[in-house]
């Protein structure tokens, strides 16, 4: 079995949950990564969904963040105001995942529109919980496929702002520079070259002096991820 770039992205994101207590989970890639982490790296990880379920233990990945199984397997189910005020804003979230249509070199994200706001070429879903996750999670981990149309010089709309801990793509990992805060390639996945990452970035990509290579995806990681995502 060989992982796709997107599978590697989720698996690397799951590894980033080692040693953390709480994770704020959105649907899609974040949910896959968080549930993978709970199965392999961090069985005590508390999954908190924005629908208000705390400590959900789903057996398969839910299609939506409000599926019945999330409530039925939770330690506690609270209202939406409570999850945002007493959990996210209160700083109880160790790791929050975000995805986006566009990212800029400081890690700001756009999930709102492509094109001008009043007359967009593509109307995207919008903010959801991203602004508050970006503002309040202790670590923000961004997952998105690395393409020049996504890694852009200038966002069409700033949906969320906040220094991410890391950006995990299908090609590698970017981390903000300690000084400038600019996203810097520090790691590539097995078989990926730095030049590929440069070519997939819409700005002149900053690259660390010593770019590491992602530890290979294990058989177990891939098998568990695929079982979750069936």
């Amino acid at each position: 079995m060989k992982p796709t770039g997107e599978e590697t992205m989720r698996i690397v994101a799951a590894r980033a949950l080692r040693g953390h207590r709480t994770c704020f989970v959105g649907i899609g890639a974040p949910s896959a990564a968080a549930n993978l982490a709970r199965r392999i790296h961090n069985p005590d990880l508390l999954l908190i969904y924005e629908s208000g379920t705390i400590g959900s233990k789903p057996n398969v990945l839910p299609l939506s963040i409000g599926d019945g199984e999330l409530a039925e397997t939770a330690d506690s189910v609270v209202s939406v105001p409570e999850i945002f005020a007493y959990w996210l804003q209160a700083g109880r979230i160790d790791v929050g995942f975000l995805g986006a249509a566009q990212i800029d070199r400081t890690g700001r994200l756009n999930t709102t529109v492509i094109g001008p706001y009043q007359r967009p070429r593509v109307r995207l879903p919008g903010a959801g919980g991203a602004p508050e996750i970006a503002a309040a999670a202790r670590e923000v981990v961004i997952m998105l496929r690395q393409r020049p149309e996504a890694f852009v010089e200038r966002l069409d709309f700033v949906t969320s702002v906040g220094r991410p801990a890391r950006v995990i793509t299908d090609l590698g990992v970017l981390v903000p520079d300690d000084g400038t805060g600019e996203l810097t390639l520090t790691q590539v996945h097995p078989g990926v070259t730095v030049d590929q990452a440069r070519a997939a970035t819409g700005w002149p990509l900053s690259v660390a002096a010593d770019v590491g290579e992602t530890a290979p995806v294990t058989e177990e990681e891939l098998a568990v991820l695929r079982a979750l995502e069936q």
Partner: protein
Amino acid sequence: MAPVFASLHDAVAELIHDGDTVAMEGFTHLIPHAAGHEVIRQGRTDLTLIRMTPDIIYDQLIGAGAARKLVFSWGGNPGVGSLHRLRDAVEHGWPRPLELAEYSHAMMASAYVAGASALPFGVLRAGAGTSLPEQNPALQSVICPFTGESLTAVKAHRPDVTVIHAQRADRTGNVQLWGIVGIQKEAVYCAQRSLVTVEEIVDELAPMPGAVVLPAVTVTMIALAPGGAHPSYAQGYYRRDNAFYLAWDATSRSRESFGAWLRGVRAGS
């Protein structure tokens, strides 16, 4: 006084008028789809629709031309992709242009809480540095009188009507819902009027773990609508129809296939 029990038809006719601001809430769970269909059937128009996650329920209302404005925080088909009718309205003005008032989830929650508390605004710490306040005048800033910190102030939601779906009501009009309870309590409490559709009406509400009870005095009308949350789910009654959500992507993608769906709903009773 106590809520009035009525048919779904009569309740919608009584409570929802052209031009009203209407919130239909239910966070994935207990989405009041039957009420949404009834609004379409009765041909309501010029509505301002409030909802955190417009979801299929508002995609249908928007495609039917019922909405003038959408107040929301995340407009996708959860786990599937775009809301094509919402996109068509925003990108191409079809079937009519749609004004947007755009928030984050926490901002929407704060606006509902403020409305339910009869406060003119809510306060939260998110949104600074984003483009959201540029596009939405309901987002301002407020300075903490103790620390000097600047925070986001969000204007309270005070809809004319809120519609929710709940598992059950008793005959005096107390409403009970459980499972993921989302923002429904605040949505009902912040509204001038409210309509609750329910799976069943019972003699007595047996206490349930995790249940929220909306006391009768907080509800304007109740309509029996078994299955009224479909294709979303009602915990303890039926599961989410994920196939419908997946199929909606194709149904809603073209104006033609949506039109066929719409004719079916309008022909329905």
